[in-house]
């Protein structure tokens, strides 16, 4: 299957601030092929979540999507009417959030919150909604689903809550699931279970955009990976290529900063410095001030994302290769 489910073209998101306009997402383009899990990696604040929010129309004011297009199966989301787009969400695209502790309404029963989605999109009656929710609870691996239906969120563990969130996102069988750091707030064993569940969902036909800063998670789950830095995509490659032969110095740095149990290293390698503030981006390449290989050219001009035969990279150094 090589059909494009979601295409993002030159997406820009802007926020006015006291220090001038910033662009947390700057001309980002990415594609999700039908039936795949696509990864989006980057440090905190690089614009990963903002990209996802743009797709879900959840950008907080005063921020705004100022450019580009988002196409779902060729339909431009930006051209849709407000109601049409709203009703598309939850039915064709849905999203799960990072923190399952705060993603459920504390004063509403867990099951009722899932019911809401079906009743909203399919107009099902209460009894039928309840039956389907319980079915979905069982499908996402919630033990004793009948009892959990009537539980309040504070009576559920973090892992269970994330499963409820997934049930909520998946109940209408959407084509695309956006998972924004779905396991960051969970402990490792629960993380493994949730990832397994997501793999099962993909086998069931749902494409997934997995946003994470955890390269281990990405390596395990994804086929295609986009690396984001300071609002831009800096590298895009298949998972094998990316891990075996990273092209961009930032990706190389990220991979070196992963601890390995096999090798004995005295000190964990890090990328020096921090992600630059968006209102004081360095001239030229955004990574140039932290890059060990930066040249005069890197500090003067900004490299564009270029096709390198099956992969893309935004770095001048690749010219020499």
């Amino acid at each position: 299957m090589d059909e494009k489910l979601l295409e993002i073209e030159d997406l820009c998101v802007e926020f006015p601030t006291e220090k001038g306009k910033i662009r947390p997402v700057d001309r980002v383009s990415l594609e999700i092929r039908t039936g795949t899990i696509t990864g989006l990696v980057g440090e905190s604040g690089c614009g990963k979540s903002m990209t996802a929010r743009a797709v879900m129309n959840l950008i907080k004011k005063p921020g705004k999507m100022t450019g580009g297009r988002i196409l779902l199966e060729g339909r431009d989301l930006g051209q849709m009417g407000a109601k049409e787009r709203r009703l598309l969400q939850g039915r064709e695209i849905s999203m799960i959030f990072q923190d399952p502790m705060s993603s459920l309404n504390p004063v509403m029963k867990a099951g009722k919150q899932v019911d809401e989605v079906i009743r909203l999109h399919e107009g099902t009656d209460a009894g039928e909604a309840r039956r389907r929710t319980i079915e979905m609870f069982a499908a996402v691996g919630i033990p004793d689903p009948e009892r959990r239906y009537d539980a309040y969120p504070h009576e559920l563990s973090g892992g269970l809550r994330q499963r409820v969130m997934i049930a909520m996102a998946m109940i209408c069988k959407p084509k695309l699931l956006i998972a924004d750091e779905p396991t960051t707030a969970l402990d490792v064993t629960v993380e493994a279970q949730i990832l397994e569940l997501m793999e099962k969902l993909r086998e069931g036909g749902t494409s997934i955009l997995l946003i994470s800063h955890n390269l281990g998670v990405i390596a395990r789950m994804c086929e295609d990976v986009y690396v984001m830095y300071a609002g831009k995509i800096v590298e895009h490659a298949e998972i094998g290529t990316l891990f075996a032969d990273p092209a961009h110095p930032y990706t190389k740095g990220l991979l070196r900063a992963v601890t390995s149990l096999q090798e004995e290293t005295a000190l964990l390698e890090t990328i020096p410095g921090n992600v630059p503030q968006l209102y004081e981006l360095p001239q030229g390449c955004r990574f140039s001030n932290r890059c060990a290989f930066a040249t005069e050219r890197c500090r003067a001009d900004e490299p564009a994302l270029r096709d390198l035969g099956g992969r893309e990279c935004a770095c001048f150094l690749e010219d020499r290769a």
Partner: protein
Amino acid sequence: MKDALRRMIRANKLSLVSLIVIFLLILFSILAPWLTPYGEADMDLMHRLSPPSAEHLLGTDEAGRDVLTRLLYGSRVSLMVGIVPTLLSMVIGAVLGVTAGYLGGAVDSIIMRLADIVLAFPSMLLAMVIMYTLGDGLFNVFLTLTLMNWGTVARIARAETLKLKTIDYVEAARSIGMSKGRIIMRHILPNCIPTLIVLFTLNVPSAILTESALSFLGLGIQPPSASWGLMVNTGRQYLFNAPWLSFAPSGAIMLAVLSFNFLGDGLRDAIDPRLRRR
């Protein structure tokens, strides 16, 4: 809610006592006609201003009416005045405040400026102006108190909404395509309720006191109907030769006001831990 009540009763005996007192007050006001042999306006001019006795437990007033009887009937007015307009202003304030907070922009500005106008006016003066224009009577007292109180409620509901609006579950609801109205009904309002309940118990005594003050000024309930405020007002003229006339209703006001305040305190303490856990 049931949990909160149970927790309150366990932690705070005073609030339990308050709850019982409020319950009894309401019960007595309903059962008033069966509790006393006298009518609300039955005059007995032979026994004017008689001190408390076995026949008249709290004495009689300047027209020979039984003070206890009037106190019981008066509690109907005073409790209604405490509860009805407070409830009305809660509903109006909550709906307007939540709408303003959630929608923002021009709607927010218009609603909140209206609230500011109400809040900026000295409340007693506002009440007097309204009552003077509309005339007295129970309905107008309700109207006045509702108009006076909705602003505060709206402010608090709006603040709560602004806080809730950015919480993940509201975003999650938006991400699954819920409409604004539904989000407000399902997610925002239910989460404002603990705060509003506490506000309710704090506003009830203030409404009772305002009615008392209005009646005292001759703008509230008119004789021969009784209300606690009105009774204090008439009793004032006989403060030295018949002190029971003003002491009895004053005591009743104090009891009701304190009970609602203590109940409010207890409820707040009981609900707070849940807020912190959230």
